[in-house]
């Protein structure tokens, strides 16, 4: 469904992505792992058109390089950014409603489903989103993107700065999305969730993919973990 070939990206003159290749099939859960600063976030930003990419990016067979991000989004590619850009002055409900791309064509995720799924959000449906806790914000942004009915959702560091219990909940949410048949590209630093729900994992280092395999293969490969992931 998503095909990335030889993706390069620059910040000014610095060559951040140096030829990334990755694939996500329909309905597949794939994790993109690696330490900070290796270019994981830049990869998803480049796919969304927020960072000017060079190379080939195909989504559902369509070349999306150079498209404005709203057009990419409308093709069915959802993106939950790293910093959980909620709209702080809007209420939770309004945030969720903004995820809907076209009010005339309701998608498979409805507002009520979301609220039912997350009693926390339901309880705060009409308060300003700015006061939510980090975990709730993560739920909110992810749900908001789901409201747009994506076929593939890219989630950047959903567990960043979250307490272990909340991390667990976020993991559950992602698993549920996967069950619903939405493909997921998960950018993570923590191994636990990624290994639990992914079908395949990529590990990035220095602007390239340095490892590709199943979670089991990764668990087995201590050297790779030691070199690219651990402290």
């Amino acid at each position, binding site marked *: 469904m998503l095909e990335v070939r030889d993706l390069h990206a620059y910040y000014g003159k610095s060559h951040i992505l140096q030829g990334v290749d990755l694939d996500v099939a329909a309905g597949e859960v794939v994790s993109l792992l690696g330490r900070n600063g290796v270019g994981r976030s830049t990869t998803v930003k480049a796919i*969304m058109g*927020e960072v000017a990419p060079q190379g080939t990016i195909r989504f559902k067979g369509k070349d999306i390089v150079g498209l*404005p*991000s*709203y057009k990419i*989004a*409308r093709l069915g590619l*959802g*993106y939950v*950014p790293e910093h959980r*850009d909620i*709209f*702080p*002055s*809007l209420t939770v409900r*309004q945030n969720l*409603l*903004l*995820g809907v*791309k076209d*009010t005339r064509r309701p998608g498979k995720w409805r507002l009520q489903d979301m609220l039912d799924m997350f009693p926390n959000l339901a309880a705060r449906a009409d308060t300003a989103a700015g006061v939510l806790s980090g975990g709730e914000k993560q739920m909110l942004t992810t749900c*908001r*993107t789901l409201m*747009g009915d994506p076929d593939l959702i890219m989630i950047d560091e959903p567990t960043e700065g979250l307490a272990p219990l909340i991390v667990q909940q976020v993991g559950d949410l992602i698993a549920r999305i996967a069950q619903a048949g939405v493909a997921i590209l998960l950018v993570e630093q923590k191994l636990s969730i990624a290994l639990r729900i992914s079908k395949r994992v990529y590990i990035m280092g220095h602007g390239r993919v340095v490892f590709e395999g199943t979670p089991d293969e990764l668990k087995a490969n201590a050297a790779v973990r030691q070199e690219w992931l651990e402290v």
Partner: protein
Amino acid sequence: MLELIVISTLNGVLFGMLLFLLSSGLTVIFSMMGVLNFAHASFYMLGAFFGFQLTKWIGFWPALVLAPLLVGAIGMAVERYGLRNTHKHGHVAELLLTFGLAFAIEEIVSMIWGKSPVDYRVPALLDFPAFTIFSTNYPAYKLFMLAVSIVIFIALLIVLKRTRVGLIVQAALTHPHMVGHLGHNVGRVFMAVFGVGSALAGLAGVIAGPALVTQSDMAAALGPILFVVIVFGGLGSLPGAFIASLVIGLVQTFAVALDGSLASAFGPLDPSAGPSVLTDIWNVTIAQVAPIVPYLLLVIILIVRPMGLMGTRES
């Protein structure tokens, strides 16, 4: 005394609402795009002249609808072909672009309609005194202006807070990229915002034109006070602009009503001292300085509270 207070209050509110009518569009544009549109008063002037011309051709009421639309279209063109390209050079460049635009528009207007005031009249339907207090008439047209201002205020609040478009606009204010990632065309949203802001200025022009003088220098005369209103109220805050309009309207009206000066409060200075700055300051009445009081308020509030009355950010 009571009479003067009642009438001054009424006048102040009416004038304040006129200010709000004029500044609402400016606030909308600033709050959404961070652009201080120096050409706003020029769009107001365009509205007045379009209103005048269309009234001549098709009557006031159709003009009331059509002229703002025209001005809005011009505003959208300015955003699309001017501001959008300038955006990368920063807010100062954007501001200067509108500064130049104000110059050009004034000249274009005077080229087409001349430099004398045009005969733009209150529509016959509203040309009667609505009510009388203390034997002072209040013309229906002023009440019409008041009503339009309030309707615009409420409508803008509803649009911004309640409608989907308003939500997108508000969201785009803080997180334009995110809004794009959700599949909304942010560029078009900004263009529309600028269009609406300009159209509001145009509407103000159509309505205020007959009440004030419609002339090619009307923009220059009103421009600065609009900045006072929106900066005083807090940049980008619609309720702030509303309150600031009222405050400035009332302050100015009551200042006129007061004849007090330092001399009347503390007695005249020793005349043997001769003329000096002190005697000038001593003898000037509050009424004399009424129209510059807003600027004083502006400077004071910016020094004390740089974000303005209701603002949340500085720039």
